[in-house]
């Protein structure tokens, strides 16, 4: 349902005053000029509504004056008195006048129906006037564009040139058009915008435009992902595969009888094969997250639970590296809207990295906090280690796929190069933020910031 608190509802632009109920939002008009215009509109509307009554009385009067010879100026005066009298009859009128149903009433009936109709559409829909000003929109459009408000031009939230051109060209000569456009940021999205011309037959002056947006992202993604996966995987898998083939060659030939060499080579081959398996797993995770990037997660999950789970899973690794993992949290129950598996993967990856790149005997601290500044409370989960740190020029590149810090031991430590890319994608999908800070010789801190979900506030979510 359209929610007046969210600004959904009627427009108060003067162009469409007769299309929509003139009394709606009248209190918001502060300009004297606009108020005057509105009053004039109202008077005209009154007269227009009662036009048949006025014409009828004019005819009767002309008839009477012709019959009884009343002079023309008296007729005009009497006619004016009748018009004034008609104008003063209250809206809705006396029962007799109900026959002359006002077009404005019919108009606002049409708008009520329009409201209900577009709310029932499966896609985001916006009704605009000929100039492109937003009149009303449904809940899905309000979700798609955060700052959608009636009374403003559509270019405030949507700037794509093809869609704006389609809106300008929309008219009786070109009643329907579809424009396909895509966005890359903040996340990838492909949409088809259908622009339709609406004409209200009883009010030839009044027409509107309906803009419906249909999401094509899923379809496009499926096609692209297949190609991307092959491109990504082939390069990274080739290296370990080549090395395994090399060892097989050697074992078949020169080292066939060499017991010690065989043992050593088999160990290396096993390691490389495991690396390939991990890589494929990571690529599949990444693909899965990317596929769903445009869908906001809807389930409430408990952060404390996930962090504890991740920490527990990494206990053996931490013990082996002689690193102490500590979870600090002042908060009892912290809920966010998210995907349980994906968020657990995020914490697993971040804590795993902290242990892997930390110094032996060091500490990893996981700090869960609430940030309250401004509109909505946010939860921050910071994973801090006291390892060797990362040089500042590498920080912006860390979340790139397969980015390796030149000269580091990342390769030998068996990294897939995808851990942080997965973290970044999951955080994006959850509409959160990932902050990375590090100082060489002191340590690194990776912070995930997510919007908090308050169960009692969002009863009607």
């Amino acid at each position: 349902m359209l929610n007046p608190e969210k600004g959904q509802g009627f427009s108060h632009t003067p162009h469409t005053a007769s299309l929509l109920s003139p009394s709606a939002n009248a209190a918001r008009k502060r300009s004297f000029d606009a108020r005057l215009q509105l009053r004039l509109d109202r008077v005209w509307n009154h007269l227009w509504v009662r036009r048949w009554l006025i014409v009828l009385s004019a005819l009767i009067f002309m008839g009477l004056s012709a019959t009884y010879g009343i002079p023309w100026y008296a007729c005009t005066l009497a006619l004016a008195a009748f018009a004034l009298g008609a104008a003063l009859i209250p809206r809705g009128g006396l029962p007799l006048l109900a026959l002359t149903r006002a077009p404005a009433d019919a108009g606002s009936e049409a708008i009520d129906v329009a409201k209900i109709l577009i709310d029932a559409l499966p896609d985001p829909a916006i009704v605009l006037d000929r100039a492109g000003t937003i009149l009303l929109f449904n809940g899905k459009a309000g979700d798609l564009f955060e700052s959608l408000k009636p009374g403003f031009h559509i270019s405030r939230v949507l700037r794509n040139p093809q869609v704006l051109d389609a809106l300008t060209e929309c008219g009786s000569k070109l009643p329907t058009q579809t424009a396909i456009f895509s966005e890359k940021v903040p996340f990838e999205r492909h949409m088809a915008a259908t622009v339709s011309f609406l004409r209200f037959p009883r009010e030839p002056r009044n027409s509107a435009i309906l803009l419906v947006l249909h999401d094509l992202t899923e379809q496009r993604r499926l096609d692209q992902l297949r190609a991307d996966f092959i491109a990504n995987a082939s390069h990274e898998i080739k290296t370990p595969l080549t090395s395994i083939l090399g060892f097989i060659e050697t074992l078949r030939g020169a080292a066939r009888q060499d017991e010690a060499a065989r043992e050593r080579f088999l160990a290396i081959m096993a390691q490389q094969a495991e690396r390939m398996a991990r890589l494929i797993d990571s690529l599949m995770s990444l693909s899965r997250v990317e596929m769903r990037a445009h869908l906001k997660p809807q389930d409430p999950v408990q952060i404390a639970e996930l962090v504890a789970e991740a920490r527990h899973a990494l206990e053996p690794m931490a013990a082996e590296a002689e690193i102490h993992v500590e979870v600090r949290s002042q908060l009892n129950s912290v809920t966010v809207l998210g995907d349980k598996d994906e968020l657990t993967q995020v914490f697993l990856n971040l804590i795993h990295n902290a242990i892997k790149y930390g110094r032996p005997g060091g500490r990893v601290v996981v700090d869960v906090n609430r940030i309250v500044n401004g509109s909505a409370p946010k939860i921050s989960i910071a994973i801090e280690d006291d390892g060797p740190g990362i040089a500042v020029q590498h920080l912006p590149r860390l979340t790139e796929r397969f980015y390796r810090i030149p000269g580091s031991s990342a390769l030998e430590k068996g990294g897939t190069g995808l851990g942080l890319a997965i973290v970044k994608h999951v955080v994006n999908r959850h509409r959160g933020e990932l902050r990375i800070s590090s100082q060489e010789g002191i340590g690194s801190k990776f912070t995930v910031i997510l919007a908090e979900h308050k169960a009692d506030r969002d009863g009607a979510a």
Partner: protein
Amino acid sequence: MSEHISRAFEEELRTLDTKIAQMGGLAEQALSRAIDALNHHDPELAETTLANDRAIDRLERVIEDLTISIIGRRQPVAGDLRQLITALRIAGHLERIGDLAKNIAKRAIAVAVEQHPKHLMLGFTHIGETALRQLKDVLDAYSQRDAAKARRVWQQDEEIDAMYNSLYRELLTTMMEEPAHVGLYSHLLFCAKNLERIGDHATNIAETTYYLIHGTVLAEERPTVDNTSFARLTVPSKS
């Protein structure tokens, strides 16, 4: 919604806003297409971008004419005057962004036939998308008169500068390792510089937007970490 005695004046200011948003949309699309043309070896897409630059230039002239005519006729003061001045400045910045995107598209045509090294192109996509995000955020901040958003864009220019630093070093190292392809890498270097400049223009638009909303200038020294102008690279001598 502001109050003006003359509804026509209100309409003119809204038309100006709409035209700026329209020009912003064209600039965003030009940048997005140029980056795609480079990444996907797509000279046709690059040609489309070159052709559409004319629309951006045309809009800048339209906005200039409209602004000057409004100033002349209405003689605005305070917030209205700021809006007109900032409209002129932002149109100028958007036109430069369009030109820089056009330059990237031209170079995309030049390097379309060659193989791009994967590790470099991932870095490119990253800096390209960051620049695109900055541009989108700052245009949203202007349309919605959101000073906090403008300030955030202004502060995040560091990110692009840092990425450019990193790409610069990587490109120079690659040039030394593979001198045969130095032509390709030079083009990529210019493209990276263009993206960094686009980021700077977006930051300038952010400063202008902040000024429009608050009437004061963002006081602190803009954070910048681009030190490639000071970088010295020693080429190992061949023995």
